[in-house]
């Protein structure tokens, strides 16, 4: 058994730039609402400027392979960042976890999002109405460590399921959009009934 402190190469969270209008900017700005178990909703309306992204929030500029964990309000949802197409950053309610290279990120995501991981996180949270998991407490989350083959198998199975889920969700949205386009096209073309 190890603790997150032993397996993390980096741990931080974002912050909110002061006096900024979030409807302005080029960089997507994610909050805890955008993170669910295994999924990141990039369709946020909040934006920050490139100067925030490259300056005061450079430490939380997301890149492929990062892991996000919600730490305020809704706590304990972990998701993997996969090749973000646009620059993305996070606020103070989301923690950014970077694991040491010898570990499989998906293994830990699978653990955090399981009933066991959530139980430990619940235990380490503070506050009742608006729960909070501090970065210090993240470091104290215990992690079961098994043989590499076992952890790799769990990571691969989880990744495969997540990938299937993501693709199916995308297909579902595309089908619905196709249906909408047919109706809109027919109305705009004044198609006969």
């Amino acid at each position: 058994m190890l603790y997150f402190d032993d397996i993390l190469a980096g741990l931080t969270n974002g912050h909110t730039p002061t006096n900024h209008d979030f409807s302005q900017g080029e960089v997507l700005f994610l909050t805890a609402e955008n993170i669910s178990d295994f999924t990141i909703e990039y369709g946020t309306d909040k934006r920050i400027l490139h100067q925030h992204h490259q300056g005061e929030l450079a430490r939380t500029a997301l890149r492929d392979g990062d892991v996000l964990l919600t730490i305020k309000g809704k706590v304990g949802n972990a998701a993997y960042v996969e090749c973000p197409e646009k620059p993305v950053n996070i606020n103070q309610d989301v923690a950014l976890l970077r694991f040491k290279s010898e570990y499989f990120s998906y293994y830990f995501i699978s653990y955090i999002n399981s009933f066991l991981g959530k139980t430990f996180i619940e235990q380490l949270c503070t506050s009742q109405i608006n729960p909070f998991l501090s970065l210090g407490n993240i470091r104290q989350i215990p992690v079961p460590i098994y043989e590499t083959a076992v952890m790799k198998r769990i990571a691969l199975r989880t990744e495969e399921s997540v990938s299937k889920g993501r693709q199916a969700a995308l297909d579902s949205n595309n089908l619905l959009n196709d249906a909408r386009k047919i109706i809109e096209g027919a109305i705009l073309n004044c198609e006969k009934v």
Partner: protein
Amino acid sequence: MAPGDILVGIIGTIGSIGLVTDRFGKLTGNCKLAIISTLEIEPEYVAVYLSSKIGQDEIIRRARGTVQMGLILPDIKDLPIPLLQPSKRKKISELVRKSYSKRQESIDSYKQAKMCFLQELGLEKFILPEELYFERKLSDVKSKRRLDSEYFKP
């Protein structure tokens, strides 16, 4: 509610559209939801029309109020529904059904992902014992600097 009913958000979040499927058992809704049951037109077709840009515009223009906008049921009855040819309506309904089926597939895959860790370790049936009470020493509280029962839960 019954499968095939269309749900429309009418207070606060106006115009959000849902379609009741047979995935759930008995369902009911509060006063913020309007329930539309269609007579002859395919409900999938009506639902997707209402969620389209044109359908949403029709809904939004009927919203009343200033601070908290709302939509009243007589206004929903007045919503125009374009009637396309039955073959086209059937095609649209089929796309919606496929979309719902894919959505369910996605939900199942994420559920599966959630179980991977426990299944691989043979813990999928593991249940934590729910004890009525437990005790901790004052020295534990002092050393951990925590005084909440959640933290010390066995």
